[in-house]
């Protein structure tokens, strides 16, 4: 068995069948991936398979599949989450089922194939396909804002895709196999290496929504929540980190790019955590927290502890999927996305849900005994021992995570006021277990035992045993003090975040509350520095707009003149050619006139002359002998004179 393929769910008239068809397929996929997981972990061998796909000329491209322990566990966790999402969708999705399950199938197929692919070009194919299917899924509602969000997501992702394509095209001459690349990479010239590293960095950061390209991720919350759970927990954004994990050696070799990666990722981590605190929209808060957590992974990669990044990727996938699915439940129940309007004292009303959601939240903030603590503490340890200042920044970020986590806990479950406007409860009792089942399935992944026996030692992880061991150069006393420090910071953060007074106070500080527009700034940056100038200039270049029609603003004029210059080769050239042809036509008329009145006239004149001369001479032939004699004498005299 090599890889798991999700067939496109076929279009059928009976909509109910589609749901169960898709559900059973996702269940089979789950079975298949778990079998694969056991096979890989029992034998300790990778599953390899390849066949010839194309021969572009000088090189042969192989469709090659390689399933190692990372891929096996990743594929398993993806299919587990997908299975949960399918159960969830039974009650969550009520319209456009054919479209929904079809595209979901395509998406999952692309993601699973991406994870198993060893050839970079085919990796790129699936990389783009997950972007494409997320474009379709984000625009599920077909409203104006969802159209905007999906278009933006695709275009920004395209930027990353092009960067990745450039990197791949440069690697083409060396090797396209991901597993072989590590040995080949050393021999590539340095200048090429830098371009490759930049390309990979941009591609990964766009997909994982790091600064300044995270704006699409925030807007992508227009998608149905079940999709958000899938896209922003385990698959789409994780693909960026997955690329970095596979390419980590690139950054270990090129230090400049590595430092850029660290700084940008830290910036993303801290700012999106602050944004998460000030965002009241539940889904958007979770999106911001995703960006923050992905930044943790990127930093782990940057400091060389890619095993820690792998672990955090797995733990994050589970607890974030739980959180998103839970958020969908809350939103559906209360018909609002605002956290503060979720109802009064929910911890009493929905205790089971409180436990499920609370556990996942605890894992997010890194509470001890959760999986999140395990991976986050590992990242902190490695960062502090290698890059001290980045590590300090991460400690701050840990505190901030707890801070917004605490606030979320308070706002959702311990709200004293009932701000909810809609009274009716959309969740019927009958369907209740359809909502809870996926959460129960996934929240198990928030505990430490899903990953390691020892809740405090991430190194003793059973899913990473086949990866090379990370040798830590950390001083011994820190091994004990760091967990204590982290726990203290977390508890402090939760307590402070829990306080509504602090929240009110902080909201009053303008500079801080302005950071909640952190994503909006990025959006504006892209729109005003790229999109607007380019489209405006193109508009002026392509269309004949008179100068009077444009407004007097300086910027528009700038675009107008630039557009004018660019239109020189097109419209203006056309006008020139048209005028040239007019000149030629006029010249033709002129020549015709000359032809008619000058050349023709001269011939006519000669004819006229001869005609009249003949008429005149005719009169000489009058038949009188005396007249002829007179002429004879006259001519002879003339001849005589001439001869003499």
């Amino acid at each position: 068995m090599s890889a798991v393929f999700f067939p496109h769910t076929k279009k059928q008239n009976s909509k109910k069948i589609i749901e169960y068809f898709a559900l059973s397929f996702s269940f089979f996929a789950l079975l298949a991936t778990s079998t694969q997981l056991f096979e890989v972990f029992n034998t300790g061998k990778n599953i390899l398979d390849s066949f010839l796909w194309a021969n572009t000329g000088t090189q042969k491209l192989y469709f090659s599949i390689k399933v190692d322990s990372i891929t096996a566990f990743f594929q398993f966790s993806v299919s587990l989450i997908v299975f949960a999402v399918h159960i969830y969708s039974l009650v969550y999705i009520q319209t456009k089922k054919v479209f929904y399950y079809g595209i979901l199938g395509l998406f999952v197929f692309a993601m699973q194939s991406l994870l198993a692919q060893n050839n970079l070009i085919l990796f790129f194919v699936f990389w783009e396909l997950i972007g494409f299917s997320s474009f379709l899924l984000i625009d599920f509602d077909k409203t104006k804002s969802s159209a905007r969000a999906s278009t933006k997501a695709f275009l920004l992702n395209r930027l990353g895709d092009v960067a990745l394509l450039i990197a791949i095209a440069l690697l083409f001459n060396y090797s396209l196999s991901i597993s072989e690349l590590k040995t080949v990479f050393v021999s590539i010239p340095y200048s090429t290496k830098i371009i490759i590293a930049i390309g990979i960095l941009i591609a990964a950061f766009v997909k994982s929504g790091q600064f300044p390209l995270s704006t699409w991720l925030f807007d992508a919350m227009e998608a149905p929540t079940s999709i958000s759970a899938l896209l922003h927990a385990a698959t789409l954004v994780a693909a960026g980190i997955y690329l970095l994990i596979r390419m980590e050696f690139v950054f270990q070799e090129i230090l400049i790019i590595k430092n850029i990666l660290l700084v940008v990722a830290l910036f993303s981590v801290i700012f999106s955590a602050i944004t998460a605190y000030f965002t009241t929209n539940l889904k958007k808060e979770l999106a911001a927290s995703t960006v923050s957590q992905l930044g943790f992974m990127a930093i782990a990669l940057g400091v060389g502890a890619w095993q820690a990044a792998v672990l955090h990727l797995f733990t994050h996938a589970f607890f974030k999927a739980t959180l998103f699915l839970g958020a969908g439940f809350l939103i559906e129940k209360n018909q609002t996305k605002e956290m503060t309007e979720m109802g009064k004292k929910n911890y009493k009303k929905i205790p089971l849900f409180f436990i499920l959601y609370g556990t996942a939240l605890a894992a997010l903030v890194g509470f001890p005994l959760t999986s999140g603590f395990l991976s986050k503490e590992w990242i902190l340890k490695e960062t502090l021992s290698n890059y001290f200042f980045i590590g300090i920044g991460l400690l701050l970020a840990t505190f901030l995570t707890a801070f917004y986590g605490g606030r979320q806990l308070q706002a959702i479950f311990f709200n004293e006021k009932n701000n909810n406007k809609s009274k009716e409860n959309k969740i019927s009792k009958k369907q209740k277990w359809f909502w809870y089942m996926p959460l129960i399935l996934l929240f198990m992944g928030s505990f430490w035992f899903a990953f390691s026996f020892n809740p405090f030692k991430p190194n003793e992880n059973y899913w990473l045993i086949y990866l090379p061991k990370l040798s830590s150069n950390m001083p011994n006393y820190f091994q004990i003090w760091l967990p204590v420090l982290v726990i203290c910071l977390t508890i402090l953060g939760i307590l402070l975040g829990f306080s509504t007074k602090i929240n009110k106070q902080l909201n009053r500080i303008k500079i801080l509350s302005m950071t909640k527009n952190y994503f909006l700034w990025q959006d504006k940056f892209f729109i005003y520095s790229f999109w607007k100038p380019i489209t405006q200039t193109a508009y002026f270049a392509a269309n004949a707009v008179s100068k009077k029609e444009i407004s007097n603003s300086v910027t528009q004029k700038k675009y107008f003149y630039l557009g004018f210059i660019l239109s020189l080769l097109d419209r203006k050239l056309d006008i020139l050619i048209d005028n040239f042809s007019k000149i030629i036509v006029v010249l033709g008329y002129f020549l015709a006139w000359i032809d008619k009145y000058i050349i023709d006239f001269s011939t006519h004149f000669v004819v006229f002359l001869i005609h009249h001369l003949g008429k005149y001479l005719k009169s000489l032939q009058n038949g009188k002998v005396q007249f002829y004699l007179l002429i004879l004498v006259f001519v002879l005299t003339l001849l005589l004179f001439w001869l003499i």
Partner: protein
Amino acid sequence: MENFILSLIFWFPLLGGILCLIPFGENKSHLYKWIGIGILSIELILVMAMFYFAKMNLDISFFDAQHLLLSEKITWWHIKLGNFGILHADYFLGVDSKNILLIMLAALVLWIGALVSVFSKKTLVRSRLYFFLYLLLSWAVMGSFLSLDFLLFFICFEFMLLPMYLLIGIWGGKKKEYAAIKFFIYTLIGSVLILVAGIIIINSGIDITKTALEIGISTEEVITQLKNATLNTSQIVHSFDMLAFKDANYFLPNSVLFASNPNNIRTIIFFLLLVGFAIKLPVAPLHTWLPIAHVEASTPISMVLAGVLLKVGGYGLLRLPFSIFTDTVIDFSFWIAAWGVFSMIYGAFLALGQTHLKRMIAYSSVSHMGFVLLGLAAMNAEGTNGAMYQMLSHGLISPLLFLLVGVLYEQTNNLTITHYSGLFHKMPYYTALVGIAFFAGLGLPTFSSFIAELTVFLGAFSSEYIPIWLSILAASTLIFTASYFLWTYKRMFLGGFSLHQTLKNAELKDISTFHKLIAFILIFFVFLLGIFPSLVFGWF
């Protein structure tokens, strides 16, 4: 049948054209439509048969003396011109890896174009003249792809203009006369450049095999005699054979085009050919005939123009300048690539600014054809294969785009992008098909355009003549391409439904079954080439 299949393919459309001349009477004008469709259907079957024979020959590696899979050759001209030598032309049809897929494409697109002309909602007026011209065009297109003799090639190449001029000028839109004359003059200038270059090439070259045959000695002896300048000039055969042009000893030592001659004539002739075919391709800034021709032409004519006629330009580049003057190409590789990249970016940029849907697609054609030039300039296997792939892929995708645009145009007579919004809510199937076409256009994987663009980039990045920054610039076009396709898609098809007030009375219906079927045929091939690239790469 293998022996005369090429002639059959070549002459069959002309036969149909002659059939169209028979007067059947006023009330039987539908007969002409059936003649047109019937002839082109048989033509498609014939091409498939040719494809089958060629594939069989390829599998057993059976090539003839000139490395062709199938060929037919009959002497046409053999004129002794005293001291100049002997002028020789053949009726020479042949099929090799460079043209076989393009012939297949041409037959398919012409067949689809005929179907669309007949079965559209708009009734076809003057169908007799229309199909006469259409079949004449098919003949010329097939001829220019099939013929390997320069004389025959040029006759067909030139002859394409006449029916196309009339097809745009009679069945076009408001400014059809202007568009037609512009198309005609632009392309005519290109042809003149090609003719001049061709005459000089033939004048200064020698067909060694034919000379050897003429004198009755071996080819090696001819070469030695050439080097010692002992060959009698009156015995030199100047032939129109395009395959002979590539010969290493083709140019006479005392001619202006001889490789080691210290003059620039070689470069000039190369650029004459390059510009001549670049007009047809078209490459910016020689493209201005294209948008207006597309906007004014009717849907099937647009499909044929974009799908087939532009490919003749690319094929000509591949067959003549880039295979004869390889040393000149290497010298100017950077500039040719830069020209291609400029065309890509410029076309994409102007497509971004368009407010007319059909114009936008026309500019996207300009942008996509820039890839062909870039791929050819890379001068390596990947680049050339990529250029070829791009021609095939664009030959399938652009007819699809024009077909779908035509569906909307039939209903509202208005293609202004900003006048529509949220068409999804009224025409879901149409939106889905346009979505497929647009994503195919922007080069999404699993569509043929992705393989094409990827291969061109692989060629460009690994070419030793093209600097990396230029290739990076070229790759950035993909963002532009995505921008204009997706932005248009978002504005017209997504979001809430609304129409401009001038369109308030328009009744929008979803795409008809016929158009759906035609679109499916094209989409099938786009997917086929996108998922199984070896189907194409296997020929090279």
